[in-house]
């Protein structure tokens, strides 16, 4: 006890000493006063005399005449004042010039404060919220950033603006404040439909990524760089240069090929963003749930991707150059059998005897190559207070990994904004893109009238062609056709020249008028003109020894032919919105109301002639034989699909309401009227409501240290999908069906395809519950969402029984309900260790369960044709994911005749009496019918991404991973083996069943034509390093010395350098329509890229 009292005294001593030191440190003069029963006013005048300080007070202040005792030596003034004011309700404030203001704590004096709020570039910020701390009253800045507010003189002002760090400042008469952009994620502004919102206030599920992140990857289309970056967003890579990757947001909600999200580029609604230069993008936001999507109504069921392009910044003109140069190659190739393996296999399969030729051709390597890729971008931006501009030019040249393939794109952009007067501004975003694609022998897909996203017949020919045939020697080709009726794949490519030249002009002009600080009117008129033309030339060649090493066979083209297709698409859109934004008390209310009108039309002309000279300069229609037909019959579906006109009229409304900055409400409704549906189904409504609670704003959370931010949110809404072709409900006449009466031709017509006269929207109803948090001093942030999406009346191309007479047998109708339920988790840890080192780890994982819950009329949908023997391999049925593989089940391999004889039905009949040892044993039902089973689908159960990165001094490094688990792939190319002379994969040759190799998983050598079975269904799991990026940024000290440049970063990047896949084929990523995806027939292989680049600012 003694010790403790000693300690106590010691502690007191230290404390007093500290106080003394601090008093002295304050620099105030010390006073000694000894007064008894004196009024406070008297004490103050004594202090005035001793210290030279002056007091300002109102003698009518309550308590100023209180009688006090003062007995101090060498005390500082504050200490004295605190003593005598204690219990009086008085307070004081020391101002400059030795002035001390005395006021009442109860009724503070009001003063008029005026000021101006600007951003880092000294540009005025309008609409900035200026409020008194702890109070509800406040104001916002006007168009010029000015504000004026009456406040108690001792008040603190809270100055906040979305996207900027909130500042709290003691009032002064004049306050000019510069806000800085917030680094905190929760303060960031997120782009939402027709406006922006603070991320903290969002009740829906959105994710966004900055343009700077996107350009780090050497990809041509921005969405490609999203792979693994966002929970709930699945990207399926397209290997073909210039192709649009497939994006699936929260599972496949529809069975239509229109399962793609809506893209909104600076307000322009589109389904193709291959014209957008990634370097021009400042922000890419994905809207994932109905609450955020509903503002886009019936376009939004598959999610919305909003792309915002960069705007100029007033001030000194900034010049930026960005470029990279790299080389691409296939990530994975399948090893085919060599000549000896092939000859042995064909022999063993009892096929024709094949004599060795001395050749052993690897067909894939004969037409695949390392392709070079380069990207260059230059941008200029700047302007004055009244005019800001950004100009950029970009060039991409991507050769692709197949011979003769290339993609070249020029892009130009000019984004300008003008301030007309204090309340109005005008601006435009304009872009032009020219893309020239040299395609490789694209196969025409008669099912949906589109070009396959693949390498066409060359790929399957290379897979099938015998290795005993030489590929090409000198100018002459190996004749695979005469040997086995398969085209020479190199000739497939080289006899065909398919060039697509796309010119696209896209632009928005807008006027924004803000007559009152709380009211904004915006009118934006957008246009999107897309004019691609396609020129396909097929050279003439005969099956003779001029072309081939040996003559004969079916691969020949007796007359050259030229097809020219000219497409012209125009889409205009006019948005008119009124936004009301006002803070009333603790309530913050934003109301948006608007009208959107749209019209799109497309016109297509095609012409065809034979016998056009081989000189590319003469590839024009008049050079051909005028006696040849003008259009090929195969053009009909293409023509029909490319000629359309549709209109849409929409009304939008949204209320964002927050109370006390912690209770959030978003309510949206959009009404869409569309010409794409019959009059009785023309209008659709998309309502949604979202609520949020920022728990950490509550008083009871103020003392906890765990969460910096915690938000709970939930939403419900309905959105639609109207992604159907124009004329989907109208019976049409197929023209030019000839017949001959009396020797004279007549062109007949027919209603060939059945139409659903009652076609309507598909409507997705979605419920969402989410949690967002930031903890450990914002080092760890995260978001967890659960969603339940139910697509009612899903639109689907149903295959109907042929008795209905529809040709093709696909009929578009509303026929199913599909459910997607899932959980998304995103976490990010970032920590600045010190000024020279910081790192982050960020990851996300999505679980999705796709399920067909209601089929209209119970008719299952079959799709996924693989060949004559396998007319369909997928079946979409209740209780299974869309597009599930439905095939015979392989139970194993018959090892001997006894096993075959023992495999009987319940009546003892041998089930596979034709089988031989080494053949597959298939599952049968007990009554002896061949059985088919559901064998999984291409839709993954989980997909995830992981990013790690650090910056150390001038170096930055990042590595991204992506994985996809729980899906299946159908090895269609293997299943399509048509004849005994088709080549096989090396593993098929070496692993096949023989008496000496009694495997249970591979059959004996066979001549192909196996039925669709689980043998061809493989795991689709894959894991990949998406991107590795290593950069070096020139330190500021060096930059300052150099003077001419303002920034410089050089980097090395590797895209898809490592892929680990379970699938034995070329690519685990197989873009396709929902009911037939995941079937590998002739894909363009996924590529990996190694590139170096530079980013230079002047």
């Amino acid at each position, binding site marked *: 006890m003694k010790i403790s009292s000693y300690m106590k005294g010691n502690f007191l001593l230290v404390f007093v000493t500290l106080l003394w030191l601090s008093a002295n440190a304050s620099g105030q003069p010390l006073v000694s006063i000894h007064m008894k029963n004196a009024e406070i006013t008297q004490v103050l005048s004594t202090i005035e005399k001793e210290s030279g300080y002056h007091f300002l007070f109102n003698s009518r202040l309550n308590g100023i005449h209180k009688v006090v005792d003062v007995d101090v030596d060498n005390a500082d003034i504050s200490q004295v004042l605190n003593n005598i004011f204690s219990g009086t309700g008085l307070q004081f404030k020391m101002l400059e010039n030795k002035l001390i203001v005395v006021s009442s704590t109860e009724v503070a004096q009001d003063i008029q404060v005026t000021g101006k709020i600007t951003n880092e570039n000294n540009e005025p910020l309008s609409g900035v919220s200026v409020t008194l701390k702890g109070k509800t009253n406040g104001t916002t800045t006007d168009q010029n950033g000015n504000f004026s507010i009456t406040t108690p003189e001792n008040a603190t002002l809270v100055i906040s603006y979305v996207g900027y760090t909130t500042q709290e400042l003691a009032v002064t008469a004049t306050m000019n404040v510069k806000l800085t952009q917030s680094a905190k994620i929760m303060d960031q502004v997120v782009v939402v439909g027709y406006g922006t919102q603070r991320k903290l206030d969002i009740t829906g599920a959105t994710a966004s990524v900055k343009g700077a992140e996107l350009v780090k990857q050497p990809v041509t289309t921005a969405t490609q760089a999203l792979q693994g970056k966002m929970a709930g967003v699945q990207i399926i890579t397209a290997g073909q240069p210039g192709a649009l990757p497939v994006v699936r947001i929260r599972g496949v909600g529809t069975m239509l090929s229109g399962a793609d999200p809506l893209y909104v580029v600076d307000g322009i609604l589109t389904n193709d963003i291959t014209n957008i230069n990634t370097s021009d993008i400042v922000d890419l936001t994905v809207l994932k749930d109905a609450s955020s999507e509903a503002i886009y109504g019936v376009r939004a069921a598959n999610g919305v991707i909003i792309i915002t392009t960069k705007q100029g910044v007033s001030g000194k003109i900034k010049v930026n150059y960005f470029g990279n140069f790299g080389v691409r190659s296939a990530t994975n190739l399948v090893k085919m059998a060599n000549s000896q393996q092939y000859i042995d296999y064909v022999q063993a399969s009892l096929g024709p005897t094949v004599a060795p030729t001395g050749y052993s051709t690897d067909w894939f390597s004969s037409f695949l190559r390392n392709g070079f890729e380069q990207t260059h971008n230059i941008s200029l931006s700047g302007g004055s207070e009244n005019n800001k501009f950004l100009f950029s030019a970009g060039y991409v040249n991507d050769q692709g990994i197949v011979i003769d393939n290339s993609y070249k794109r020029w892009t130009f952009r000019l984004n300008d904004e003008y301030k007309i007067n204090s309340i109005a501004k005008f601006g435009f975003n304009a872009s032009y893109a020219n893309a020239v694609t040299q395609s490789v022998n694209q196969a025409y897909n008669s099912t949906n009238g589109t070009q396959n996203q693949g390498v066409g017949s060359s790929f399957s020919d290379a897979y099938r062609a015998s290795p005993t045939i030489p590929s090409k020697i000198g100018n002459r080709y190996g004749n695979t056709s005469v040997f086995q009726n398969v085209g020479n794949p190199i000739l497939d490519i080289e006899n065909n020249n398919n060039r697509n030249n796309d010119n696209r002009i896209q632009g928005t002009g807008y006027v924004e008028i803000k007559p009152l600080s709380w009211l904004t009117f915006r009118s934006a008129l957008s246009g999107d003109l897309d004019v691609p033309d396609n020129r396909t030339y097929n050279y003439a060649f005969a099956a003779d020894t001029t072309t081939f090493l040996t003559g004969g066979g079916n691969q020949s083209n007796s007359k050259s032919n030229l097809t020219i297709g000219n497409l012209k698409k125009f889409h205009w859109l006019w948005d008119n919105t009124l936004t009301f934004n006002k803070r009333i008390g603790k309530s913050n209310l934003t109301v948006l109301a608007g009208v959107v*009108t749209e019209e799109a039309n497309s016109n297509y002309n095609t012409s065809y002639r034979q016998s056009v000279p081989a000189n590319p300069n003469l590839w024009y229609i008049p050079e051909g034989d005028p006696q040849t037909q003008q259009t090929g019959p195969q053009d009909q579906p293409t023509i029909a699909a490319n000629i359309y006109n549709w209109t849409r009229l929409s009304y939008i409304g949204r209320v964002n309401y927050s109370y006390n900055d912690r209770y959030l409400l978003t309510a949206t409704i959009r009404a869409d009227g569309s010409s794409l549906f019959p009059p009785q189904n023309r209008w659709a409504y998309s309502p949604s409501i979202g609520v949020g609670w920022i728990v950490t704003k509550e008083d009871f959370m103020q003392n906890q240290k765990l969460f910096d931010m915690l938000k709970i949110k939930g939403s419900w809404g309905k959105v639609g999908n109207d992604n159907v072709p124009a004329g989907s409900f109208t019976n049409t006449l197929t023209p030019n069906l000839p017949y001959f009466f009396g020797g004279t031709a007549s062109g007949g017509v027919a209603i060939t395809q059945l139409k659903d006269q009652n076609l309507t929207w598909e409507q997705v109803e979605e419920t969402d519950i989410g949690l967002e948090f930031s903890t450990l001093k914002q080092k760890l942030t995260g978001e967890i969402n659960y969603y339940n999406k139910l697509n009612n009346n899903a639109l689907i191309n149903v295959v109907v029984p042929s008795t209905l007479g529809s040709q093709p047998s696909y009929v578009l109708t509303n026929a199913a309900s599909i459910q997607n339920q899932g959980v998304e988790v995103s976490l990010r840890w970032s920590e600045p260790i010190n000024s020279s080192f910081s790192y982050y780890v960020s990851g996300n994982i999505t679980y999705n369960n796709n399920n067909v819950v209601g089929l209209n009329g119970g008719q299952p949908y079959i799709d996924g044709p693989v060949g004559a023997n396998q007319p369909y391999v997928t079946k979409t049925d209740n209780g299974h994911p869309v597009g599930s593989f439905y095939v015979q089940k392989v139970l194993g391999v018959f090892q001997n005749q006894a096993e075959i004889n023992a495999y009987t039905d319940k009546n003892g009949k041998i089930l596979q009496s034709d089988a031989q040892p080494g053949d597959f044993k298939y599952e049968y039902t007990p009554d002896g019918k061949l059985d088919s089973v559901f064998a999984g689908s291409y839709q993954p159960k989980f997909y995830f991404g992981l990013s790690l990165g650090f910056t150390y001094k001038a170096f930055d490094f990042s590595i991204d991973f992506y994985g996809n688990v729980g899906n299946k792939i159908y090895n269609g190319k293997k299943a399509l083996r048509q004849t005994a002379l088709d080549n096989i994969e090396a593993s098929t040759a070496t692993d096949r069943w023989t008496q000496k190799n009694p495997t249970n998983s591979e059959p004996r050598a066979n001549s192909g034509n196996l039925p669709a079975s689980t043998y061809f269904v493989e795991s689709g799991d894959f894991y990949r390093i998406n991107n590795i990026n290593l950069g070096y940024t020139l330190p500021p000290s060096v930059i300052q010395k150099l003077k001419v440049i303002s920034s410089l970063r050089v980097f090395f990047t590797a895209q898809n350098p490592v892929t680990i896949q379970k699938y034995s084929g070329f690519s685990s990523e197989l873009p396709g329509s929902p009911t037939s995806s995941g079937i590998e027939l002739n894909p363009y292989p996924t590529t990996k890229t190694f590139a170096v680049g530079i980013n230079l600012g002047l």
Partner: protein
Amino acid sequence: MDKMNSHMKISKYLLILLTLSMGCSKNFLDAPLQGQSTPQNDPNVATNLVTGAYSSLIYTDAGGPFGGFDTHGFAFISATNIMSDDADKGSFAGDQQSTAGQFDDFSYTSGNSFVNSVWSGHYAAISRVNNSINAIAVAPIDSATARRLRGEVLFIRAYYYFNLVRFFGGVPIVTVIPDGPQAANTNPAFVTRASAQDVYNTEIIPDLQYSIANCPLRGNTPAGRITKGAAQTLLAKVYMYLQNWQAVKDLTDSVMTEGYALAPDYRTLWRTVGDNNIESIFEIETGSYGNTDAGIPLYSECQGPRAFAGGWNNPGFNYPTGDLGWGFGTPSQTLINSYEPNDTIRKNATIIALNPDPNAPYGAILWDGFVIPSQSKVQNSTYNYKAYHSERNDNIEPYFGNRDRKEKNVHLLRFAEVLLMNAEAANELNMTGTAQADLNLVRSRAGLPNTVAGDQTSLRNAIWQERHVELALEHDRFFDLVRQGRAAQVMIAAGKNFTPGKNEILPIPGVQIALSGGKLTQNPGY
């Protein structure tokens, strides 16, 4: 206040603008369909649909994910000629084994895509007929024309159902247009098989009776249009399958009075010069359309002589190099053996037989002078001559170079068959003399002596034999054998893997059963 006023003013203008943009034209959402005509905007829709229904005879879409749509293309050839003992699969071993090949050896299953092509092609064509019937009913045309057009397309529908019932047995009778894709679920007619008897009695026979009553006689309508004679002939044939011999006799008797006759030269029947000749009753018309050939896709090509390794190269001849086609449906040894020794005219007009001598300078010289090189360069030793169409550059037969769609008319009903039907009916009705006289007309055109058959059984066999060779490779042989009740016997004798009680009819396509939700029933044994 001034400022306030001006703000109010601006707001007022904004409101007006907003209202304007909302108020667009009332019809803004009625965007008319572009680039595709509709039944509403085609003033001649009924007659054009009728032409489209005729066009289904030559329309064949060989591809497609579920095996395509075939009325008279490769799948039809497989399911008629190749399936019979007249023709082998042809081409080379393994080629199209899983499609055409399975017909040749009766290993087809319900999964064979050609089976589905035949089924789907016929129903797609029937749908064209049904659409045209609906359009005729409301078309602004005179009633006589309407009845004639209706008679023409009903003939076509009856012909298709006749094929279907012969291929598959009982099939769904579809005479209406579905109101949407859900019709498969709501209208059982689309997925329920009627009995074969019902197909004959409620569909085929009434349709043909209407045609007989409303179609003009030969000569009163352009060649190619359905005539009364065609309808009578087809109905006679239908009754022959139903063994209603009196009806066969009556109908064929009537046709024999309508100006038809045998063409003098059997060899010209399947050449362009023989198109729509005096013997022709119903043939599929082809021609050129839009500066290209418009025939049945693949009909001639898939049966054309096929090169072997090394191809053809005929320097000195102004003919194509490479080859002429795919070599399917090659005439069988059984067919060759079935001709009487002196029946060379018909045999040589039906079968291109290559010189078997490997040292011969050429394999065959065809009627137009075209030289097929020696056997060492050609895949098969026989080809179907009736499917051959000249490609000579001097256009001995019309040819624009579209080998896929050569202008080859397919002769489905001709007067020789009327005579043979009349003979068969007469024989069954014990009118031996009439039967012999009919038969001898056919034989004498072929340069053969009168028949020696006298009693009913031997005469029946003689008539059947005559049908076999006279109509060889004209797509009827297999159906005849089934009708005659001797398919199993003949097929097994020809070495085919034929299962009696099963292979007389094809399986219902498995895809179609799946699409019907299991409501379509399968044929026995499949």
